[in-house]
């Protein structure tokens, strides 16, 4: 494919500014007269605040103001919210404690916000913050996910057992019946390790208040500025929606962690009016480790039942999900509706039952991180399937193939209705690229050198294109998850596309322009994508859940269709033909069956000069908007295969090959899509082998820097082999499924299945660090856990 249309690997338009140092990230901005904020954070995991003495700090040079939770309360500023209501099995609503932006009475995790110091310079703010005297009465803390329920320490009085909800999904009786007649049951205890998202740009915010107009502006590192504005106005009550402008300029990665409405950003807007000057805050990396929302952190017992023909007949799980000390913006939905509905994987499983306990602990809030719930589900399913095949003595690929869903649409027992897919096609292609046939030989060669080689599969599915608004509304979401677009054609024929989605690395400025170029037959150089500013784009839901292609671009498609329809009307007048005779193709409006035609740009000009038609018969101008609400989730799926070599003497795991074959439906820009796959795999490999947030028993985060939390580096990873299959998605006009999270979802079980294949037993948890692997290798091979 050449050119710039759908399917072309167009080089990115946005790169020019990034490779020359001209990107504009929030911390790059300086507002006239700005002050700087530093937060006083709790050193305790759990404590009562007896008093806060700011007198010494106030006397420090450059200090402008020091604000605490009392000031917030006095101004009647509301707490941060969780926007998804989950009901427990017994029908009661989840038990949520208050979440003030600055602590009121109590702190609940190390890094919790106690006060803010605003000063002339950042160094002065920091110096003064260290002089704020807080008298704490330390309380017992609860940290461990598995031990939180009913622990002595109570995080919120509203949830006396630390239980936010006891939720379930699926059919309990049918599942029990399946297990009762099973020929074989596999049982696994699984920990999904806690991760810290770590976009390389830390969060930052500048709040500004204009006393003349009464309007506020917030520049912030957000994946969804409109949602931020809605929450800050409607729930937190800082300013009416029309008086608050939220701008998310260039954003340096998000991975979910920049979806949420956090304390610091809230405080910056509120404080800007109090001090009468702009207030800027930029997180340092240590603060990001402490106070960005973390991801994952599940403890699960999972079981899989198969009949005498090795056909899967039932799956059940009990999961405890750590939600941290407060419920972050979408936290409640992640271990529930983003998790359990994916427990059918790619398999035809007639009975599934999932129970999930959401618990409070004295740790940072846990919310969506790349994949959000779906990696946890995939890890459960793909570990169960792999171990079952091993216990049955079957080839893991054959066992998968036998149990794949083969007919579509397919209704699972856990909400989802899969629209289309061809799972065997991806498996076969992946096995070919990975040269699975040659694995035995490679394993023998490794053995000759004293090394252990293993191969692991992962057949993942995810639900993307989030999401049909009515469906998520019925499940408790506080918002609809459609997307908006506006296509503005200028008189010269150049185009601005306003989108409610947000790009923070995904390349929307290129991909979206390709769509416009493809549909309207114009050069991508004449198309500008506008996003991330609530004053320009009216409303939108932002970017997460691999939704910008499937939902955001569908909205653009709808608006383009309206532009073409209006263009036909204009062209009919200009060409003196009837509207029904006008055809649009290759960027020209033509009178069918004649050689009379006008280029797109000529019609745009005619629309604006309005000389060829009466403004009473046809409105001048060429600008159309659309809201697109998806009809279903989309279901990207694929197979990843990992091959590792382990040095039994050091425990070091080397990834020798990593193959990914994904079915994303229609792909707009394969270069960008492959890049998304690469990045996702790296995060998945990070989870499997390196990353893990560790709190000690007292609730101190001991992995709060890049020297303690191992990020994947170039030397830790191989080059990846990426292939594609394609079954176009029938649920949206473009056939797109979404690609942003696939790698992070698929990779962890592929890696761990390879590691366990190499070491010959299943007793290892993520992250499989050299130390953990070395220990596992030393351990005598234990008897298989299940019957």
């Amino acid at each position, binding site marked *: 494919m050449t050119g710039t249309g759908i399917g072309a690997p167009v080089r990115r338009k946005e790169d020019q500014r990034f490779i020359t*140092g001209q990107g504009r990230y929030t911390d790059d901005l300086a507002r006239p007269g700005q002050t700087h904020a530093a937060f006083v954070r709790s050193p305790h995991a759990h404590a009562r605040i007896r008093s806060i003495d700011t007198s010494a700090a106030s006397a420090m040079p450059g200090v402008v103001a020091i604000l605490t939770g009392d000031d917030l309360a006095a101004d009647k500023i509301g707490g941060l919210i969780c926007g998804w209501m989950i009901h427990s099995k017994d029908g009661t609503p989840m038990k949520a404690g208050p979440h003030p932006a600055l602590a009121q009475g109590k702190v609940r995790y190390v890094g919790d916000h106690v006060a803010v110091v605003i000063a002339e310079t950042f160094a002065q703010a920091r110096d003064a913050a260290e002089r704020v005297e807080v008298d704490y009465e330390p309380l017992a803390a609860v940290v461990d996910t598995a031990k939180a329920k009913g622990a002595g320490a109570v995080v919120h009085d509203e949830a006396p057992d630390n239980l936010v909800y006891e939720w379930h999904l699926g059919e309990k009786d049918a599942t029990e019946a399946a297990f009762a007649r099973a020929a074989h049951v596999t049982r696994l205890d699984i920990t999904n390790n806690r991760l810290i998202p770590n976009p390389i740009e830390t969060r930052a915010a500048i709040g500004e208040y204009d006393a003349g107009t009464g309007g506020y502006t917030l520049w912030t590192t957000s994946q969804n500025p409109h949602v931020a504005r809605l929450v800050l106005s409607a729930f937190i009550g800082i300013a009416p929606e029309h008086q608050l402008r939220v701008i998310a300029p260039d954003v340096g990665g998000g991975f979910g962690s920049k979806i949420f409405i956090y304390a610091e950003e809230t405080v910056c807007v509120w404080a800007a009016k109090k001090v009468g000057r702009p207030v800027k805050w930029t997180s340092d990396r240590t603060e990001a480790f402490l106070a960005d929302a973390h991801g994952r952190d599940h403890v699960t017992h999972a079981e899989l039942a198969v009949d005498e023909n090795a056909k899967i007949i039932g799956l059940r799980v009990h999961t405890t999900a750590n939600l941290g000390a407060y419920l972050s913006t979408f936290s409640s939905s992640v271990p529930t509706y983003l998790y359990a509905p994916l427990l059918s994987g790619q398999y035809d499983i007639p009975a599934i039952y999932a129970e999930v306990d959401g618990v409070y602990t004295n740790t940072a809030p846990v919310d969506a991180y790349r994949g959000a719930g779906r990696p946890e589900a995939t890890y459960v399913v793909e570990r169960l399937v792999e171990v079952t095949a091993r216990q049955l003595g079957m080839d893991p690929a054959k066992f998968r193939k036998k149990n794949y869903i083969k007919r579509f649409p397919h209704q699972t027992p856990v909400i989802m209705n899969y629209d289309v897919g061809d799972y065997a096609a991806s498996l076969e292609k992946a096995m070919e690229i990975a040269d699975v046939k040659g694995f035995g030989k490679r394993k023998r060669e490794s053995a000759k050198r004293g090394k252990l080689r293993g191969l692991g599969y992962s057949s993942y599915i995810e639900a993307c294109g989030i999401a049909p608004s009515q469906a998520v509304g019925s499940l408790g979401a506080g918002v609809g998850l459609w997307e908006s677009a506006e296509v503005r054609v200028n008189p010269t024929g150049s185009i601005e596309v306003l989108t409610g989605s947000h790009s923070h690395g995904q390349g929307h400025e290129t991909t979206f322009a390709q769509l416009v170029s493809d549909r309207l037959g114009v050069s991508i150089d004449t198309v500008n994508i506008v996003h991330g500013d609530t004053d320009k784009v009216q409303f939108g839901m932002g970017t997460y859940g691999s939704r910008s292609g499937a939902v955001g671009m569908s909205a653009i498609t709808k608006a383009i269709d309206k532009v073409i329809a209006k263009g036909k009307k204009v062209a009919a007048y200009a060409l003196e033909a009837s509207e029904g005779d006008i055809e649009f193709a290759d960027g020209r409006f033509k009178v069918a069956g004649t050689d009379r035609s006008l280029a797109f740009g000529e019609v745009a000009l005619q629309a604006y000069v309005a000389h060829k038609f009466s403004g009473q018969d046809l409105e001048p101008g060429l600008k159309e908007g659309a809201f697109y609400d998806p009809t279903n989730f989309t279901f990207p799926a694929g197979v990843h295969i990992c091959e590792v070599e382990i040095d039994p003497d050091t425990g070091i795991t080397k990834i020798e090959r990593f193959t990914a074959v994904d079915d994303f439906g229609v792909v707009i820009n394969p270069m960008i899509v492959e890049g998304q796959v690469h990045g996702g795999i790296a995060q998945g490999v990070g989870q499997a082998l390196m990353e893990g947030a560790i709190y000690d028993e007292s609730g101190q985060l001991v992995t709060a820097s890049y020297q303690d939390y191992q990020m994947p580096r*170039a030397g830790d990873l191989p080059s990846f082999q990426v292939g594609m299959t394609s079954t176009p998605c029938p649920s949206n006009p473009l056939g797109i499924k979404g690609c942003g999270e696939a790698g992070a979802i698929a990779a962890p079980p592929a890696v761990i299945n390879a590691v366990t294949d190499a070491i010959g037993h299943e007793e290892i948890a993520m992250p499989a660090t050299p130390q953990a692997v070395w220990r596992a290798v030393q351990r005598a091979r234990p008897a298989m856990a299940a019957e």
Partner: protein
Amino acid sequence: MAIVSMTVNGKPVTADIDPRTLLVQFLREHLRLTGTHVGCDTSQCGACVVHMNGAAVKACTVLALQADGGDVVTIEGLANGAELHPMQAAFREHHGLQCGYCTPGMIMTAVDMANRLGPDLSEETIRSELEGNICRCTGYHNIVRAVESGARAMAGQPMREAAE
């Protein structure tokens, strides 16, 4: 306060600064050269890499005063007017960036790598030389391709087009 003078991207600059000012703060806040980024506080991520007296340094770990009298080049000074430096062009051609945040540091590190080690960089060399630069977006796959190709282009060898 202390007076510091240096050359930045070919231009002489002098300023009166707090002695604890880091070079990266000096560049970003005093000179408003915001292409050099900060990604950590432990000298680990490499988002801040610039060239000082011809060698790559982490500008978050150098005091501005240590650069006194020196010659500093930042990402903004790499291109020759409108003509991109070959390493910049290679990062675009090979999709070696997504969010762009690590990119200035990556490019400055890569240029230094090619200056020291020449045009023929093996994948292994590139991966081990990138030890001090963290990227959370790309998985490094395309960064490796970009550095390979950019190093060759710096030596005047034609840049290979990315495989399609």
